[in-house]
């Protein structure tokens, strides 16, 4: 009994230590966990697989370094699939601090897959005022992106010659750390009937489920788990799959702490009731 009472008053630094250990140790020893693909993730993959060769896919980088472990593995897995299927990614950025992450991922995978800049893919960079941009792209993308991220005119790139608005984009994939995806659904989806797939941080993924069920988005990749599922689908297990063991054990430890905390709470409550009854 006393043990549980003492446990309820445990120094929080011990909790931090436990969490640190269960996050770091699996990353070192790499235990294997089977990753089962869920339907919302499978739907994104299948939709892209069915796109005709040469289709343009608009990727919106709406995250920054804080969400890098959740979003970057998905970006890389997605780009592998796009380049493999000869689809053409057009990268735009709504979060300024996400621009280098998008560029880094795009350049890394393009190099790996032998894609040529301006022919197989393009990076348009960041522009302020995302709502205006989302509506504006529905009319003419050049109104907002006259040049690419290196200030080279868009018309000098072969792949952009016939790209003007959402009619020329087969799918929009939003990688989202905040609520920018709501505007994508409202404006690009609602007004211009643009097909949308979303990758959200685990914390905000539940918010997008009703868009998935109502068919407003073709699929949903939630957090690092979703990214791990996508890595499995493109047959290239990478950082997200490696992170699954850490995530599994850290969830387990948090649950154990909650259970222990509750046992201590009920023992303490029982003792107080007993004392009160005397």
């Amino acid at each position, binding site marked *: 009994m006393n043990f549980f009472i003492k446990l309820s008053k445990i120094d929080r630094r011990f909790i931090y230590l436990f969490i640190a250990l269960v996050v770091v140790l699996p990353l070192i020893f790499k235990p294997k966990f*089977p990753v089962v693909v869920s339907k919302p993730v499978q739907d994104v993959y299948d939709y892209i697989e069915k796109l005709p060769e040469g289709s343009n896919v608009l990727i919106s980088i709406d995250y920054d*370094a*804080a969400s890098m472990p959740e979003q970057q593995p998905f970006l890389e897995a997605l780009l592998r699939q796009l380049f493999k299927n000869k689809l053409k990614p057009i990268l735009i950025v709504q979060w300024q601090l996400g621009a280098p992450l998008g560029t880094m991922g795009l350049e890394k995978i393009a190099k790996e897959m032998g894609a040529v800049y301006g022919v197989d893919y393009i990076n348009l960079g960041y522009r302020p005022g995302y*709502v205006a941009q989302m509506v504006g792209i529905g009319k003419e993308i050049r109104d907002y992106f006259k040049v690419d991220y290196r*200030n080279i005119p868009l018309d000098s790139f072969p792949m952009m010659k016939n790209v003007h608005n959402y009619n020329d984009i087969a799918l929009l994939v939003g990688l989202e750390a905040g609520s920018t995806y709501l505007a994508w659904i409202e404006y690009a989806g609602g007004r211009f009937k643009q097909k949308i797939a979303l990758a959200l941080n685990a914390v905000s993924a539940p918010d997008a489920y009703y868009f998935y069920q109502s068919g407003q988005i073709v699929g949903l990749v939630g957090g690092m788990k979703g990214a791990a599922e996508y890595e499995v689908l493109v047959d290239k297990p990478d950082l997200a799959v490696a992170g699954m063991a850490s995530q*599994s054990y850290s*969830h387990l430890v948090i*649950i154990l702490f909650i259970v222990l905390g*509750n046992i201590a709470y009920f023992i303490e409550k029982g003792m107080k009731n007993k004392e009160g009854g005397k």
Partner: protein
Amino acid sequence: MLKGKGIPIFITFLVGMIMIISFFIPHKPFGDIEKISLNWYSIIAGFTMLLGVDSLIGMHFRKLKRKDENWFFSLVLILGFTATVVVGIIETVRFGTAFDDKSYFTYIYNYFIVPLQSTMFSLLAFFIASAAYRAFRARNFDATLLLITAIIVMLGRVPLGEQISPYLPKFTEWIMQVPQMAAKRGIGLGISLGALGVSIRIILGIERSYLS
């Protein structure tokens, strides 16, 4: 005659009506007006950054001047901000973009901004674990229901759940797609109807609190 608060109320009404009409009639002249409005919106959005910078730097300068508690951190912020802006401008002129591989701005981004942002977000895991241990108690029926659901979802959303039972992820998916979504939809509809009501009140000049 329009005077005082009547002028901003009239402008709000006019702009609001134009945006509504141009949504349903995207042809001339409304389509062009919408395009111009969106360009203005982008320009204003760009300038809001200046307002933010002014407010941030101003506050930390005042802290520094008064030698308030933790003034040293204000000094670090001002120096860090100045260095980042100066390096960003120089490297944009040198390479055409601040994020060139050889740019010092990329160095600042990779070795300062990325670790700082990642650290801030990572700390959440520790705080959540500690807070859950101390505060997540089955005090009543509602709290117990929440506790059990949280445990199921936490296990079902990681591969460990599949190891425990193949039904656990399926049950988690059901929780996410049915009860969770029903509640979210209700909240979402309520918020949307509320926003719609407030928007109409603002356009018609009934709601004026934004003017004060």
